[in-house]
Protein backbone atom coordinates (compact mmCIF):
# COMPACT_ATOMS: atom_id res chain seq x y z
CA UNK A 1 0.00 0.00 0.00
CA UNK A 2 1.40 3.41 -0.99
CA UNK A 3 1.75 6.34 1.44
CA UNK A 4 -1.13 8.16 -0.29
CA UNK A 5 -3.37 5.14 0.02
CA UNK A 6 -2.39 4.73 3.65
CA UNK A 7 -3.36 8.34 4.34
CA UNK A 8 -6.74 7.74 2.69
CA UNK A 9 -7.28 4.72 4.96
CA UNK A 10 -6.45 6.81 8.01
CA UNK A 11 -8.81 9.55 6.85
CA UNK A 12 -11.57 6.96 6.69
CA UNK A 13 -11.02 6.38 10.41
CA UNK A 14 -14.08 5.46 12.40
CA UNK A 15 -16.35 5.66 9.35
CA UNK A 16 -15.25 2.15 8.43
CA UNK A 17 -16.36 0.92 11.86
CA UNK A 18 -19.73 2.62 11.53
CA UNK A 19 -20.04 1.20 8.01
CA UNK A 20 -19.41 -2.31 9.36
CA UNK A 21 -22.02 -1.77 12.07
CA UNK A 22 -24.54 -0.59 9.46
CA UNK A 23 -25.02 2.83 11.06
CA UNK A 24 -23.24 4.99 8.49
CA UNK A 25 -25.36 6.86 5.99
CA UNK A 26 -25.32 9.63 3.43
CA UNK A 27 -22.16 11.04 1.92
CA UNK A 28 -19.87 9.32 4.43
CA UNK A 29 -21.24 5.96 3.33
CA UNK A 30 -20.62 6.80 -0.34
CA UNK A 31 -17.04 7.84 0.44
CA UNK A 32 -16.39 4.56 2.24
CA UNK A 33 -17.88 2.59 -0.66
CA UNK A 34 -15.69 4.46 -3.14
CA UNK A 35 -12.60 3.79 -1.06
CA UNK A 36 -13.42 0.10 -0.63
CA UNK A 37 -13.54 -0.38 -4.38
CA UNK A 38 -9.83 0.32 -4.61
CA UNK A 39 -8.47 -0.69 -1.19
CA UNK A 40 -8.09 -4.39 -0.47
CA UNK A 41 -6.69 -3.60 2.99
CA UNK A 42 -9.82 -1.76 4.16
CA UNK A 43 -12.02 -4.31 2.42
CA UNK A 44 -10.42 -7.07 4.51
CA UNK A 45 -10.69 -4.88 7.62
CA UNK A 46 -14.39 -4.37 6.92
CA UNK A 47 -14.95 -8.09 6.53
CA UNK A 48 -13.33 -8.77 9.90
CA UNK A 49 -15.31 -6.04 11.67
CA UNK A 50 -18.58 -7.13 10.09
CA UNK A 51 -17.84 -10.72 11.16
CA UNK A 52 -17.49 -9.61 14.77
CA UNK A 53 -20.73 -7.61 14.58
CA UNK A 54 -22.56 -10.58 13.03
CA UNK A 55 -21.42 -12.95 15.78
CA UNK A 56 -22.74 -10.52 18.38
CA UNK A 57 -26.26 -10.98 17.02
CA UNK A 58 -26.15 -14.58 18.21
CA UNK A 59 -25.92 -13.36 21.80
CA UNK A 60 -29.54 -12.20 21.92
CA UNK A 61 -31.47 -14.77 23.97
CA UNK A 62 -34.10 -16.86 22.21
CA UNK A 63 -37.76 -16.31 23.06
CA UNK A 64 -40.96 -18.22 22.35
CA UNK A 65 -43.43 -16.34 20.14
CA UNK A 66 -47.14 -16.56 20.94
CA UNK A 67 -49.23 -19.59 20.06
CA UNK A 68 -50.19 -19.56 16.39
CA UNK A 69 -47.15 -17.58 15.24
CA UNK A 70 -46.06 -20.40 12.95
CA UNK A 71 -49.54 -20.93 11.48
CA UNK A 72 -50.07 -17.23 10.83
CA UNK A 73 -46.67 -16.99 9.19
CA UNK A 74 -47.17 -20.00 6.91
CA UNK A 75 -50.62 -18.75 5.85
CA UNK A 76 -49.26 -15.30 5.16
CA UNK A 77 -46.36 -16.75 3.18
CA UNK A 78 -48.63 -19.00 1.14
CA UNK A 79 -50.90 -16.10 0.36
CA UNK A 80 -48.02 -13.84 -0.70
CA UNK A 81 -46.40 -16.70 -2.59
CA UNK A 82 -49.57 -17.31 -4.63
CA UNK A 83 -49.87 -13.61 -5.47
CA UNK A 84 -46.17 -13.48 -6.25
CA UNK A 85 -46.36 -16.44 -8.62
CA UNK A 86 -49.25 -14.97 -10.56
CA UNK A 87 -47.48 -11.59 -10.67
CA UNK A 88 -44.29 -13.29 -11.78
CA UNK A 89 -46.03 -15.15 -14.57
CA UNK A 90 -47.48 -11.90 -15.92
CA UNK A 91 -44.16 -10.17 -15.44
CA UNK A 92 -42.22 -13.01 -17.07
CA UNK A 93 -44.39 -12.60 -20.16
CA UNK A 94 -43.75 -8.87 -20.27
CA UNK A 95 -40.06 -9.37 -19.61
CA UNK A 96 -39.69 -12.00 -22.32
CA UNK A 97 -41.47 -9.75 -24.80
CA UNK A 98 -39.28 -6.80 -23.76
CA UNK A 99 -36.13 -8.90 -24.05
CA UNK A 100 -37.03 -9.85 -27.60
CA UNK A 101 -37.71 -6.19 -28.34
CA UNK A 102 -34.34 -5.16 -26.91
CA UNK A 103 -32.54 -7.86 -28.85
CA UNK A 104 -34.23 -6.82 -32.08
CA UNK A 105 -33.65 -3.12 -31.47
CA UNK A 106 -30.10 -3.61 -30.27
CA UNK A 107 -29.05 -5.82 -33.13
CA UNK A 108 -30.93 -3.69 -35.63
CA UNK A 109 -29.23 -0.49 -34.57
CA UNK A 110 -25.86 -2.17 -34.28
CA UNK A 111 -26.22 -3.69 -37.69
CA UNK A 112 -26.63 -0.20 -39.17
CA UNK A 113 -23.70 1.17 -37.14
CA UNK A 114 -21.53 -1.77 -38.08
CA UNK A 115 -22.30 -1.51 -41.75
CA UNK A 116 -21.11 2.12 -41.75
CA UNK A 117 -18.19 1.74 -39.36
CA UNK A 118 -16.89 -1.36 -41.00
CA UNK A 119 -14.26 -2.11 -38.38
CA UNK A 120 -16.53 -2.38 -35.34
CA UNK A 121 -16.72 -5.85 -33.85
CA UNK A 122 -20.32 -7.12 -33.98
CA UNK A 123 -19.85 -9.27 -30.90
CA UNK A 124 -18.69 -6.27 -28.89
CA UNK A 125 -21.50 -3.98 -29.99
CA UNK A 126 -24.37 -6.43 -29.71
CA UNK A 127 -23.60 -7.67 -26.22
CA UNK A 128 -26.02 -6.06 -23.73
CA UNK A 129 -24.91 -4.81 -20.33
CA UNK A 130 -26.38 -6.84 -17.53
CA UNK A 131 -26.13 -6.33 -13.80
CA UNK A 132 -27.73 -7.36 -10.56
CA UNK A 133 -29.61 -4.74 -8.57
CA UNK A 134 -28.24 -4.84 -5.04
CA UNK A 135 -29.72 -3.47 -1.84
CA UNK A 136 -27.93 -3.90 1.49
CA UNK A 137 -25.95 -6.77 0.05
CA UNK A 138 -29.01 -8.59 -1.28
CA UNK A 139 -29.96 -9.13 -4.91
CA UNK A 140 -33.32 -7.44 -5.51
CA UNK A 141 -33.50 -7.49 -9.28
CA UNK A 142 -31.70 -7.27 -12.56
CA UNK A 143 -30.98 -4.67 -15.21
CA UNK A 144 -30.21 -5.22 -18.85
CA UNK A 145 -29.22 -2.44 -21.27
CA UNK A 146 -28.97 -3.08 -24.98
CA UNK A 147 -26.03 -1.78 -26.96
CA UNK A 148 -26.46 0.81 -29.70
CA UNK A 149 -27.95 4.26 -29.60
CA UNK A 150 -30.56 4.73 -28.37
CA UNK A 151 -30.16 1.91 -25.92
CA UNK A 152 -33.04 0.21 -24.16
CA UNK A 153 -33.09 -0.61 -20.52
CA UNK A 154 -35.06 -3.42 -18.91
CA UNK A 155 -35.33 -3.33 -15.17
CA UNK A 156 -36.82 -6.16 -13.16
CA UNK A 157 -37.22 -5.41 -9.46
CA UNK A 158 -38.33 -7.43 -6.46
CA UNK A 159 -37.64 -5.31 -3.39
CA UNK A 160 -39.81 -7.31 -1.04
CA UNK A 161 -41.86 -4.53 0.51
CA UNK A 162 -41.44 -1.16 -1.16
CA UNK A 163 -44.47 0.10 -3.05
CA UNK A 164 -45.07 3.32 -4.94
CA UNK A 165 -43.34 5.44 -7.53
CA UNK A 166 -39.58 5.13 -7.89
CA UNK A 167 -37.19 6.87 -10.25
CA UNK A 168 -34.54 5.14 -12.33
CA UNK A 169 -31.20 6.90 -12.76
CA UNK A 170 -28.04 5.96 -14.63
CA UNK A 171 -24.48 7.13 -14.03
CA UNK A 172 -22.51 7.68 -17.22
CA UNK A 173 -18.79 7.18 -17.80
CA UNK A 174 -18.21 10.95 -17.45
CA UNK A 175 -19.81 10.88 -13.99
CA UNK A 176 -23.04 12.57 -15.09
CA UNK A 177 -26.22 11.20 -13.51
CA UNK A 178 -29.33 11.07 -15.69
CA UNK A 179 -32.86 10.27 -14.68
CA UNK A 180 -34.24 7.81 -17.21
CA UNK A 181 -37.81 7.85 -15.96
CA UNK A 182 -40.09 6.61 -13.26
CA UNK A 183 -42.16 3.53 -12.69
CA UNK A 184 -44.32 1.99 -10.01
CA UNK A 185 -43.58 -0.87 -7.66
CA UNK A 186 -46.59 -2.86 -6.46
CA UNK A 187 -46.07 -5.15 -3.48
CA UNK A 188 -42.35 -4.77 -4.05
CA UNK A 189 -42.44 -5.85 -7.69
CA UNK A 190 -41.93 -3.91 -10.86
CA UNK A 191 -40.79 -4.57 -14.42
CA UNK A 192 -39.98 -1.73 -16.75
CA UNK A 193 -38.51 -0.90 -20.14
CA UNK A 194 -37.39 2.51 -21.36
CA UNK A 195 -34.99 4.08 -23.85
CA UNK A 196 -31.65 5.41 -22.56
CA UNK A 197 -30.71 8.70 -24.24
CA UNK A 198 -26.97 8.01 -24.44
CA UNK A 199 -25.40 4.86 -25.77
CA UNK A 200 -25.70 1.98 -23.33
CA UNK A 201 -21.96 1.46 -23.52
CA UNK A 202 -21.52 4.74 -21.62
CA UNK A 203 -23.61 3.59 -18.66
CA UNK A 204 -21.59 2.58 -15.59
CA UNK A 205 -24.38 1.99 -13.09
CA UNK A 206 -28.14 2.07 -12.76
CA UNK A 207 -30.15 2.66 -9.63
CA UNK A 208 -33.65 3.27 -8.35
CA UNK A 209 -34.35 6.08 -5.93
CA UNK A 210 -37.44 7.16 -4.03
CA UNK A 211 -39.01 10.63 -4.00
CA UNK A 212 -36.50 11.75 -1.35
CA UNK A 213 -33.59 10.76 -3.55
CA UNK A 214 -32.67 7.84 -1.31
CA UNK A 215 -31.01 5.07 -3.30
CA UNK A 216 -33.08 1.89 -2.88
CA UNK A 217 -31.00 -0.41 -5.06
CA UNK A 218 -28.11 -0.14 -7.46
CA UNK A 219 -26.48 -2.20 -10.21
CA UNK A 220 -22.93 -1.57 -11.35
CA UNK A 221 -21.61 -2.50 -14.77
CA UNK A 222 -18.03 -3.29 -15.63
CA UNK A 223 -16.31 -0.48 -17.57
Amino acid at each position, binding site marked *: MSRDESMKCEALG*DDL*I*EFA*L*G*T*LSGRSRSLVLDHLETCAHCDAELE*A*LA*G*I*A*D*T*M*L*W*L*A*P*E*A*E*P*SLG*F*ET*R*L*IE*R*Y*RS*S*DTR*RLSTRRRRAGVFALAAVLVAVLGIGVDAIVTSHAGTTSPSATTRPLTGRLMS*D*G*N*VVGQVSISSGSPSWMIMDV*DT*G*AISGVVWCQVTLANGRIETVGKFTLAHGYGSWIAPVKDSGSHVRSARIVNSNGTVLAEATFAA
Partner: protein
Amino acid sequence: MRTRGNYNDEASDEALLSGVAVGDDRAVLAFVRRYQRRLFGLALGIVGDPGMAEDVAQEAFIRILRHAAVYDARRGSVATWTLTITRNLAIDAVRVRRPIPTAPEDRVFLTLVSDERSPDDAAVLSDSVTQARAALDALPIDQRRAIVLAVMYGRTVAEVASLEAIPLGTAKSRIRLGLAKLREAAAVAEAP
Protein backbone atom coordinates in the same frame (compact mmCIF):
# COMPACT_ATOMS: atom_id res chain seq x y z
CA MET B 1 -46.44 -24.81 -2.62
CA ARG B 2 -45.14 -28.23 -3.34
CA THR B 3 -43.77 -30.96 -1.15
CA ARG B 4 -40.64 -32.75 -2.27
CA GLY B 5 -38.07 -33.39 0.39
CA ASN B 6 -38.11 -34.78 3.86
CA TYR B 7 -36.23 -32.55 6.27
CA ASN B 8 -35.07 -33.48 9.72
CA ASP B 9 -33.02 -31.70 12.36
CA GLU B 10 -29.83 -32.80 10.62
CA ALA B 11 -30.60 -30.96 7.38
CA SER B 12 -28.24 -28.04 6.86
CA ASP B 13 -29.55 -24.49 6.74
CA GLU B 14 -28.44 -24.31 3.10
CA ALA B 15 -30.39 -27.48 2.25
CA LEU B 16 -33.51 -26.05 3.87
CA LEU B 17 -33.13 -22.79 2.00
CA SER B 18 -32.69 -24.65 -1.28
CA GLY B 19 -35.94 -26.48 -0.55
CA VAL B 20 -37.65 -23.18 0.23
CA ALA B 21 -36.36 -21.73 -3.04
CA VAL B 22 -38.10 -24.44 -5.08
CA GLY B 23 -41.35 -24.04 -3.14
CA ASP B 24 -41.10 -27.07 -0.89
CA ASP B 25 -43.70 -26.92 1.89
CA ARG B 26 -41.74 -29.05 4.34
CA ALA B 27 -38.58 -27.03 3.91
CA VAL B 28 -40.51 -23.85 4.70
CA LEU B 29 -41.97 -25.38 7.84
CA ALA B 30 -38.65 -26.84 8.98
CA PHE B 31 -36.89 -23.53 8.40
CA VAL B 32 -39.51 -21.57 10.34
CA ARG B 33 -39.39 -24.03 13.24
CA ARG B 34 -35.62 -23.89 13.36
CA TYR B 35 -35.39 -20.11 13.46
CA GLN B 36 -38.59 -18.72 14.96
CA ARG B 37 -37.37 -18.58 18.57
CA ARG B 38 -34.08 -16.98 17.61
CA LEU B 39 -35.60 -14.38 15.26
CA PHE B 40 -38.39 -13.54 17.65
CA GLY B 41 -35.93 -13.33 20.55
CA LEU B 42 -33.68 -10.91 18.67
CA ALA B 43 -36.63 -8.77 17.54
CA LEU B 44 -38.07 -8.73 21.05
CA GLY B 45 -34.73 -7.68 22.48
CA ILE B 46 -34.57 -4.66 20.17
CA VAL B 47 -38.19 -3.46 19.98
CA GLY B 48 -39.18 -4.47 23.52
CA ASP B 49 -42.83 -5.12 22.69
CA PRO B 50 -43.99 -8.73 22.04
CA GLY B 51 -46.68 -7.74 19.51
CA MET B 52 -44.33 -5.54 17.55
CA ALA B 53 -41.58 -8.17 17.79
CA GLU B 54 -43.90 -10.75 16.24
CA ASP B 55 -44.68 -8.38 13.38
CA VAL B 56 -40.96 -7.83 12.83
CA ALA B 57 -40.16 -11.55 13.00
CA GLN B 58 -43.00 -12.38 10.58
CA GLU B 59 -41.83 -9.74 8.10
CA ALA B 60 -38.27 -11.00 8.41
CA PHE B 61 -39.36 -14.57 7.69
CA ILE B 62 -41.43 -13.49 4.69
CA ARG B 63 -38.44 -11.66 3.22
CA ILE B 64 -36.07 -14.53 3.91
CA LEU B 65 -38.41 -17.13 2.42
CA ARG B 66 -39.18 -15.03 -0.62
CA HIS B 67 -35.51 -14.33 -1.29
CA ALA B 68 -34.25 -17.84 -0.53
CA ALA B 69 -33.30 -18.32 -4.18
CA VAL B 70 -30.91 -15.36 -4.16
CA TYR B 71 -29.16 -16.21 -0.88
CA ASP B 72 -25.43 -16.09 -1.54
CA ALA B 73 -23.33 -18.28 0.78
CA ARG B 74 -20.23 -16.22 -0.04
CA ARG B 75 -21.75 -13.30 1.83
CA GLY B 76 -22.13 -15.18 5.10
CA SER B 77 -23.95 -18.02 6.77
CA VAL B 78 -27.72 -18.50 6.58
CA ALA B 79 -27.93 -17.76 10.31
CA THR B 80 -26.06 -14.48 9.95
CA TRP B 81 -28.19 -13.51 6.96
CA THR B 82 -31.45 -14.17 8.79
CA LEU B 83 -30.33 -12.43 11.99
CA THR B 84 -29.08 -9.39 10.10
CA ILE B 85 -32.37 -9.02 8.21
CA THR B 86 -34.27 -9.30 11.50
CA ARG B 87 -32.01 -6.83 13.29
CA ASN B 88 -32.36 -4.25 10.50
CA LEU B 89 -36.14 -4.60 10.38
CA ALA B 90 -36.36 -4.30 14.17
CA ILE B 91 -34.21 -1.16 14.22
CA ASP B 92 -36.30 0.34 11.40
CA ALA B 93 -39.47 -0.45 13.34
CA VAL B 94 -38.13 1.25 16.46
CA ARG B 95 -37.03 4.32 14.52
CA VAL B 96 -40.42 4.65 12.79
CA ARG B 97 -42.17 4.50 16.15
CA ARG B 98 -39.64 6.65 17.97
CA PRO B 99 -37.71 8.97 15.64
CA ILE B 100 -35.34 9.76 18.53
CA PRO B 101 -34.34 6.38 19.97
CA THR B 102 -34.43 6.08 23.72
CA ALA B 103 -32.03 4.06 25.81
CA PRO B 104 -32.81 0.35 25.77
CA GLU B 105 -33.52 -0.86 29.28
CA ASP B 106 -34.87 -4.26 28.33
CA ARG B 107 -33.72 -7.62 29.52
CA VAL B 108 -31.45 -8.24 26.52
CA PHE B 109 -29.45 -5.09 27.13
CA LEU B 110 -29.30 -5.67 30.85
CA THR B 111 -28.35 -9.31 30.34
CA LEU B 112 -25.60 -8.52 27.85
CA VAL B 113 -23.99 -5.76 29.88
CA SER B 114 -24.35 -7.59 33.20
CA ASP B 115 -21.52 -9.58 34.78
CA GLU B 116 -23.96 -12.09 36.24
CA ARG B 117 -24.61 -15.33 34.38
CA SER B 118 -27.49 -17.72 34.49
CA PRO B 119 -26.41 -21.33 35.24
CA ASP B 120 -28.24 -22.37 32.06
CA ASP B 121 -26.22 -20.06 29.82
CA ALA B 122 -23.37 -22.48 29.21
CA ALA B 123 -25.77 -25.25 28.23
CA VAL B 124 -27.75 -23.10 25.82
CA LEU B 125 -24.95 -21.39 23.92
CA SER B 126 -22.90 -23.06 21.20
CA ASP B 127 -19.09 -22.99 21.30
CA SER B 128 -18.62 -20.03 18.97
CA VAL B 129 -21.33 -18.05 20.72
CA THR B 130 -19.88 -18.95 24.11
CA GLN B 131 -16.54 -17.60 22.93
CA ALA B 132 -18.16 -14.39 21.68
CA ARG B 133 -19.97 -14.05 24.99
CA ALA B 134 -16.77 -14.59 26.95
CA ALA B 135 -15.00 -11.98 24.83
CA LEU B 136 -17.82 -9.50 25.42
CA ASP B 137 -17.73 -10.20 29.16
CA ALA B 138 -14.00 -9.51 29.21
CA LEU B 139 -14.52 -5.95 27.99
CA PRO B 140 -14.65 -3.06 30.46
CA ILE B 141 -18.29 -2.23 31.19
CA ASP B 142 -18.20 1.12 29.35
CA GLN B 143 -16.90 -0.51 26.16
CA ARG B 144 -19.39 -3.36 26.55
CA ARG B 145 -22.32 -0.94 26.77
CA ALA B 146 -21.14 1.03 23.74
CA ILE B 147 -20.66 -2.13 21.67
CA VAL B 148 -24.08 -3.56 22.56
CA LEU B 149 -25.81 -0.25 21.82
CA ALA B 150 -24.10 0.04 18.42
CA VAL B 151 -24.13 -3.57 17.25
CA MET B 152 -27.35 -4.92 18.72
CA TYR B 153 -29.44 -1.77 18.75
CA GLY B 154 -28.05 -0.08 15.64
CA ARG B 155 -27.29 3.15 17.47
CA THR B 156 -24.95 5.54 15.66
CA VAL B 157 -21.82 6.74 17.43
CA ALA B 158 -23.50 10.11 18.02
CA GLU B 159 -26.50 8.36 19.61
CA VAL B 160 -24.23 6.24 21.81
CA ALA B 161 -22.51 9.44 22.94
CA SER B 162 -25.85 11.03 23.75
CA LEU B 163 -27.25 7.97 25.55
CA GLU B 164 -24.12 7.51 27.63
CA ALA B 165 -23.68 11.26 28.17
CA ILE B 166 -20.09 11.18 26.93
CA PRO B 167 -18.21 13.18 24.26
CA LEU B 168 -18.41 11.91 20.69
CA GLY B 169 -14.70 11.11 20.65
CA THR B 170 -15.06 8.98 23.78
CA ALA B 171 -17.94 7.03 22.24
CA LYS B 172 -15.86 6.44 19.12
CA SER B 173 -12.86 5.22 21.07
CA ARG B 174 -14.97 2.92 23.27
CA ILE B 175 -16.50 1.26 20.22
CA ARG B 176 -13.17 1.11 18.38
CA LEU B 177 -11.29 -0.36 21.34
CA GLY B 178 -14.10 -2.78 22.16
CA LEU B 179 -14.28 -4.08 18.60
CA ALA B 180 -10.50 -4.41 18.44
CA LYS B 181 -10.51 -6.56 21.59
CA LEU B 182 -13.39 -8.69 20.31
CA ARG B 183 -11.52 -9.17 17.06
CA GLU B 184 -8.37 -10.13 18.90
CA ALA B 185 -10.30 -12.65 20.98
CA ALA B 186 -11.88 -14.13 17.84
CA ALA B 187 -8.46 -14.48 16.22
CA VAL B 188 -7.10 -16.28 19.29
CA ALA B 189 -10.10 -18.62 19.32
CA GLU B 190 -9.63 -19.46 15.64
CA ALA B 191 -5.89 -20.05 15.94
CA PRO B 192 -4.87 -23.72 15.68
